[in-house]
């Protein structure tokens, strides 16, 4: 418990550092959002309105320290300002929608890919030297080494454009309004299928190979050999003795992948015009939408920290040896 609290303290400090960097970075870049917005309105904005806008974005003439404190206060209340690109929506609202879609596709993809890849890794290692073990990893690594956007575009072109099996973009059909109806849910699922499937196919090989290699080294260990000598059923030897131990390094990788979900699904969302976090980020950059950018960067950082914290806790549960250090 003390261990978890200590970790928690560490993550709070890291989060504070991220929030602070997040404040300074955009202010070091050229241009300012109010001017950008002014340009958008093609000069039809009065100087008073302009001044009011600056105020809304927190870009006052106040000293930096005061700006920073105001910013911190806002962040703590979950107020990240007004979006320029999606004016006049609040950044928190814009991010929340994007976040939902990103978690749906990228989250599903990472979990599915990890589960399938790890299972295949266990199978490949326990049938070492079989055709499965010889062919499967190489094929999946081959597929995974294509540039992802290219792979995704080819799949979209064939299955979406030519064969028309799947929609070309968006999270659900334009003629539907979000509801819990069967029609809406199935629309969401068909729209999510290609983005999820391409990410799974591209990342499967990595999970498979790392689990397979962990398994191969664990299978050579004394405790697995002893489990065999005990006359236990092969399934128990493989799962409870070998895979249970081989899983540990993969869990670390899984945690990192979870953390990168928000930042990493950029390409997927661009190729499939999916309205997630990555897509929003591109919009934000295009429109010099600082508040939105800041909000997204902050979410990405927090996601990485959050995923790390989760993995720390999961690790305590998975590996009893780490509990000692915690005491």
């Amino acid at each position, binding site marked *: 418990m003390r261990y978890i609290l200590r970790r928690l303290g560490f993550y709070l400090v890291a989060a504070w550092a991220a929030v602070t960097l997040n404040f300074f970075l955009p202010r070091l870049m050229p241009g300012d959002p109010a001017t950008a917005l002014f340009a958008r309105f093609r000069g039809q904005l009065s100087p008073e309105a302009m001044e009011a806008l600056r105020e809304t974005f927190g870009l006052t003439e106040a000293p930096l320290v005061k700006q920073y404190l105001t910013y911190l206060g806002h962040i703590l209340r979950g107020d990240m300002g007004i979006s320029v690109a999606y004016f006049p929506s609040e950044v928190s609202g814009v991010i929340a929608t994007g976040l939902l879609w990103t978690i749906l596709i990228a989250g599903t993809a990472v979990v599915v890919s990890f589960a399938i890849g790890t299972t295949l890794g266990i199978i490949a290692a326990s049938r*070492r030297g079989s055709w499965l073990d010889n062919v499967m990893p190489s094929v999946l690594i081959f597929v995974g080494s294509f540039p992802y956007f290219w792979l995704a575009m080819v799949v979209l072109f064939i299955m979406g454009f030519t064969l028309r099996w799947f929609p070309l973009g968006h999270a659900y059909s334009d003629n539907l309004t979000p509801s819990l109806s069967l029609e809406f849910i199935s629309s969401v699922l068909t729209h999510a299928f290609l983005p999820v499937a391409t990410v799974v196919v591209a990342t499967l090989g990595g999970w498979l190979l790392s689990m397979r290699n962990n398994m191969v080294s664990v299978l*050579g*260990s*004394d*405790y697995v*050999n*002893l*489990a*065999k*000598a*005990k*006359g*236990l*059923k092969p399934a*128990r030897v493989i799962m*409870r*003795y070998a895979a*249970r*131990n081989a899983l*540990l390094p993969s869990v670390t990788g899984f945690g990192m992948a979870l953390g990168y979900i928000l930042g990493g699904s950029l390409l997927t969302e661009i190729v499939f015009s999916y309205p997630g976090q990555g897509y929003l980020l591109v919009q934000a950059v295009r429109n010099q939408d600082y508040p939105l950018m800041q909000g997204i960067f902050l979410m990405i950082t927090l996601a990485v920290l959050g995923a790390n914290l989760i993995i720390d806790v999961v690790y305590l549960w*998975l*590996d*009893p*040896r780490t509990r*000692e250090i915690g005491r």
Partner: protein
Amino acid sequence: MNEPVLKIENLSVDYVSGETLVRAVDRVSLDVKPGEIVGLAGESGCGKTTLAKAILRILPPPAIITGGKIEYGGKDILEINEGELRNLRWQKISIVFQSAMNALNPVIRVGEQITDVILAHKSVSPDEAYDRARQLLEMVGIHPIHINSYSHQLSGGMRQRVCIALALALEPEIVIMDEPTTALDVIVEREILNQIKDLQARLGFSVIYITHDLAHLLQFSHRLAILYAAHIAEIAPTQELRENPLHPYTQKLMRAMPSLAQSEVKPETIPGTPPSLANPPPGCRFHPRCDRAIEICRREKPPLVEKATNHLVACHLVS
């Protein structure tokens, strides 16, 4: 003498390395009688551990058994199917590994590692299995509270005791002990050896005890086999071997032990190193290190012949 429980006949094990085979155990024959402690001594890399693992067919992949028989209960262990093999493992023959540090699964509790083998072989309830596990721990002098411990929470000596308790869980007929005390300090080593001796006397199982430490075996085994470069050099009842070692290698091993009685006698060393098994010398494998080697030793491999009752030796000088 009564019938052996285990009969190893002309067993050969090779390690596949690229195109070539390296023979780690070469036509070794050995039998084990009920309630007998058979010692197997030899230098590192002479094939002791390979032989031990071959008996339970748990040799890791590059090793293959290339010949011979291992008879147990009228059947050849090398021929039986997977199901029969699983039945035989641990119920009839169990093993204690050299490195207690690594022999226990680090992420599951000691209790589960003892009960899973009981539950796999006996039709008892999990509660009964746990009761048995507690008894076993107590039997080797570990407080039953450690049933809920993980291996990293135990000391090296405790881990090895857990491994011994584990080996005795199903009251097997034969326990193979592969250098069970190598990783321990001499005091713990002494305690554990005494414990093994006590348990063996009480429960009456046979032991195949493997070590490079001849001194141990001389005071503790009934019969002793000396292994040199994958071959058996000499086998004899321990008493006989101590008083009348016939093979020059055995004689040198005896002189290499420090003597408590005559402290002014310096232990001798055996010059040279054991031969590479990938490229063993022709004839007797010991001849390059043997100061009494004669012409025939360089050409012909000496057969293992019985020189006295139950005393077998493979040396041209003796036959």
